[in-house]
């Protein structure tokens, strides 16, 4: 039963990504016209795929098919806006973390385990004995000027906005929890700007503009890491520039907006 449901969901997904063979496509469409229960399943899968699109969880070919079909329509765009707003709202419930950051909640680190560890009496005794060794080791490390640096970058996905804050666009909100080294931003490249030879990423904030190197280049996005030290509280806009094979550089219209809280 479970497998049948999964198969059905997969078939609907393939239809939405325009990956079904014509005969299967026709069979699915006929069910849409005749089976209300199937229509409900179809709508549920559309919602799920839309959420995955927003969270950048689709493979490139899936994303492409969804963009060329469903998302070209006014209904599709309307649904996308609603879903985006709903996911944002849901994300606000996780204290201080926006939806895009929720996915990347920091894994428990050493210091997170201490309270759990300390609840056990035997562990407390062992810990006391071990403390001597740790202190000695600590002194050694300090003497070596050793500093533990946080290395976890919280992933954030941003889409370009043609409008500005003044037009009422709500930027993504990001709170940098302690222990987070910075944010790893996935910048979705607008469809018409894909395929450039290279891209340049410029962060614009209260203290001016600064370039950050592209860490990873994907077909539909670029990834950039920005350390927390470069992100004091405030509003930011990222500008993306396309660099073509002849070396010319052109700014892509719009900005990726976010606020650090």
């Amino acid at each position: 039963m479970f497998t049948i449901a999964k198969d059905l969901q997969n078939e609907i997904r393939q239809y939405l990504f325009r990956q079904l063979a014509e005969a299967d496509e026709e069979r699915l469409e006929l069910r849409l016209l005749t089976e209300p229960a199937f229509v409900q399943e179809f709508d549920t899968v559309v919602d799920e795929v839309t959420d995955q699109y927003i969270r950048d969880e689709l493979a490139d070919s899936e994303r492409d098919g969804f963009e060329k079909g469903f998302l070209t329509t006014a209904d599709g765009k309307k649904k996308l806006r609603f879903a985006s707003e709903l996911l944002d709202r849901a994300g606000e419930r996780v204290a201080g973390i926006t939806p895009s950051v929720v996915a990347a909640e920091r894994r428990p680190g050493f210091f997170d385990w201490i309270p759990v560890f300390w609840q056990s009496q035997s562990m407390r005794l062992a810990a006391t004995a071990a403390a001597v060794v740790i202190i000695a080791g600590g002194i050694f490390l300090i003497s070596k000027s050793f500093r533990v640096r946080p290395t976890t970058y919280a992933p954030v996905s941003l889409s370009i906005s043609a409008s500005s804050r003044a037009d009422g666009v709500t930027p993504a909100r990001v709170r940098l929890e302690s222990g987070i080294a910075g944010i790893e931003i996935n910048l979705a490249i607008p469809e018409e700007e894909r395929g450039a030879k290279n891209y340049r990423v410029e962060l614009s904030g209260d203290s001016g503009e600064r370039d950050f190197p592209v860490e990873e280049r994907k077909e539909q996005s670029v990834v950039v890491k920005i350390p927390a030290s470069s992100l004091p509280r405030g509003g930011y806009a990222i500008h993306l520039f396309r660099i073509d094979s002849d070396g010319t550089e052109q700014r892509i219209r719009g900005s990726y907006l976010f606020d650090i809280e």
Partner: protein
Amino acid sequence: MTTSKEPFDELLEWLDPDRDKAGQRYEAIRAGLIRMFVSRGVSDAEHYTDEVMDRVTKRLPEIRVSYVGDPARYFHGVARNILMEVGRRKEVVTDVLPQVIRPEPPQSETSECLSKCLKLLSRDKQELILDYHLYHGHEKIIHHQQMASELSITEGALRTRAHHLRANLEKCVNRCIDHQNKSAA
């Protein structure tokens, strides 16, 4: 005295001799066609759905006697033809004219309407719909399992419940946006 039935009545009768059942079948076909057109990237889905209904209604006197099989198949065939026509038209148009980019309505409008519509839900439903959409990936699966367990329902039932809530919320938000646009006009 002879009475000629309205074409639409003829269509309903073709779908099912029982008027209520015919109405339900008509609505089901219509809803399916709209989804089909939207999924294929046809923007004015309702217009083309009306076009399918119109073409079938017009051809009904010719086909009614000879046609064998589920009428839904016939509607589907007509819809596929229209899809091909729309595809051909799109090719011609994009060769000649640059694409018109319509300005997107401000995001804040959706946000404002979502706030209003969420307030119309009971506390439990608000919690459920927002909680359901908290996480993604593997965390989402675990979270949904926990939610289903807390509510003593299956994960499938939770999925259906969340979908119903979301669909109603979306309708409410769309109505709210339409209302705001009309008020502003």
